C-alpha cells in the first residue's frame, strides 16, 4: 500500500498543519504543552508512519518497520500520562489525524471510487490500531505511577521510632499483608543496624485482625531480627486478638509478648540493664521551670 505512503509524503506539511489546527480547536491544553513541542511530535509521527508504510505496509504495526512509530507513540503517551493529560486527550491525538489524511486521499484518488474507498479504509484501520497502542501505553504509564505511589505510601505508613538508646518501636497501623511485611522488615532491620538497637517493640494495637497469615508475617520479621542479633517484643495485643491466636493454634511460644507498649518498653529497659527511678520530691520541679529562665 505504498500509495498511502506516497499520498502522505506528498501532502505532509498540509496534513500536519490541519491536524494541529483541528486538535487545538477541541483539545485546549496549551497549559501542558507548547506549540513548538506539539509541532515536533506531529512531524516525527507522520515521518514514522510513512516509514512504517513503506517498509512493512499497514497491516501489522508490530513489525520492525513500525518500531520508530511505536516507540514514538509510547514516549508521547507516557510523557502525557505523567504531565496529566486524560486518556481521551491522548487517544484523540492520533485520531484527529484522520480528517486531514482523508482530505488528502480524496484529493489524490477522487476519480477512482474503488481505490478511494480501499485507501480510506486502510488509513482508518491503521490509525485505529495506532490509537489503541497509544491508549495501551497510557494505561501502562498510569499503572506504573500508581504502583510507585502505593510503594511510597507503604513506606510512609510504617515509621520506626527510637524510644531510647538501643530500643526501637514499630507501631503498625492497618493490615499486614506480605507486601507490607517486606517493607516493614526492611525498614526495621535497616534502622536496627543504623541505631545499633538490640530491642524492637512491634506494636500491633492498630492491626485489625491477626490470622495465621499475619502471624506468619510477624514471625518472619521477628526471626529476621533475631538472626541479626536484635530481639523483638510484640505489644498491643487486644483481648479479641489473644483469643483468635489461641483458637487458631498459632504458636507464639518463642515470642515475647506484652499487652501494651509501656509494659514492653519497661521490659526492654530492664533487659538492657536500665531502670526508671523516681526522684525525691525535693528534686522535682514543675515543667514550667524549664520553659522560662530562672536563677537556681
Amino acid at each position, binding site marked *: 500500500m505504498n500509495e498511502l505512503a506516497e499520498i502522505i509524503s506528498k501532502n505532509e506539511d498540509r496534513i500536519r498543519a490541519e491536524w494541529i489546527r483541528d486538535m487545538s480547536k477541541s483539545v485546549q491544553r496549551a497549559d501542558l504543552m507548547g506549540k513548538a513541542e506539539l509541532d515536533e511530535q506531529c512531524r516525527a509521527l507522520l515521518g514514522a508512519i510513512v516509514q512504517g508504510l513503506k517498509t512493512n505496509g499497514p497491516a501489522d504495526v508490530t513489525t520492525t518497520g513500525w518500531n520508530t512509530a511505536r516507540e514514538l507513540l509510547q514516549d508521547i503517551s507516557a510523557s502525557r500520562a505523567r504531565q496529566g493529560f486524560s486518556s481521551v486527550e491522548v487517544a484523540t491525538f492520533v485520531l484527529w489525524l484522520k480528517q486531514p489524511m482523508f482530505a488528502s486521499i480524496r484529493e489524490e484518488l477522487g476519480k477512482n471510487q474503488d481505490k478511494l474507498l480501499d485507501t480510506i479504509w486502510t488509513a482508518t484501520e491503521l490509525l485505529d490500531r495506532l490509537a489503541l497502542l497509544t491508549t495501551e501505553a497510557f494505561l501502562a504509564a498510569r499503572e506504573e505511577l500508581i504502583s510507585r505511589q502505593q510503594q511510597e505510601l507503604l513506606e510512609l505508613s510504617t515509621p520506626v521510632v527510637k524510644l531510647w538508646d538501643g530500643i526501637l518501636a514499630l507501631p503498625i497501623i492497618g493490615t499486614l499483608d506480605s507486601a507490607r511485611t*517486606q517493607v516493614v*522488615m*526492611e525498614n526495621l*532491620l*535497616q534502622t*536496627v*543496624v543504623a541505631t*545499633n*538497637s*538490640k530491642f524492637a517493640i512491634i506494636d500491633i494495637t492498630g492491626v485489625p485482625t491477626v490470622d495465621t497469615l499475619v502471624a506468619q508475617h510477624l514471625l*518472619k520479621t521477628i*526471626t*529476621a*531480627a*533475631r*538472626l*541479626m*542479633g*536484635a530481639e523483638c517484643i510484640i505489644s498491643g495485643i487486644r483481648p479479641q486478638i489473644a483469643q483468635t491466636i489461641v483458637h487458631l493454634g498459632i504458636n507464639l511460644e518463642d515470642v515475647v509478648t506484652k499487652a501494651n507498649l509501656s509494659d514492653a518498653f519497661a521490659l526492654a529497659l530492664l533487659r538492657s540493664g536500665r531502670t526508671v527511678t523516681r526522684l525525691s520530691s525535693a528534686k522535682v520541679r514543675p515543667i514550667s521551670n524549664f520553659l522560662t529562665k530562672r536563677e537556681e
Partner: protein
Amino acid sequence: MERIPVLRMGTLLLITIQVDMHDKLAMQLQDDVTQRISEWGSTGVLIDISSLEIVDSFIGRMLANIAAMSRVLGAETVVVGMQPAVAITLVELGMSLPGVRTALSVEAGMELLFGAAALNFGSGDERTEA
C-alpha cells in the same frame, strides 16, 4: 591453599569472613575452628559476617555446624553483623539457625561471650600445657 584466618584473642577465637566462599573453603573453616578450639582450649568463638552479602543454605548450615561442634568442645559461638538483606533472605529460605547465637556487632558479641564464658569452668588456663 587459601584459608580463612582464625585469630586468637585470649580464650576467644575471632573469625572474619570477607570473601565469597566456595564450598571447600567453608569445610576447611569448620575443620580449622574445631582444631583450634582443641589446641588452644578456647571457650568462645566469634564469627563476623558483616562483609558477607550472601548466605545460602550451605553457609547457613556451616554456621550452625560450627556452633554445634564448638559447643560439644566446650565453647560458645556468636555470629555477628548479619546484613539486613541477608537476614530477610535467610528467613524466606526457611533457615532460622536455631542454636546459633547472634549479636549486632563485634562488641555486642564479645559482651555475650564474656558473659557466657564467666559461667564456664575455669578460664582456659588449665588446658594450655600439653
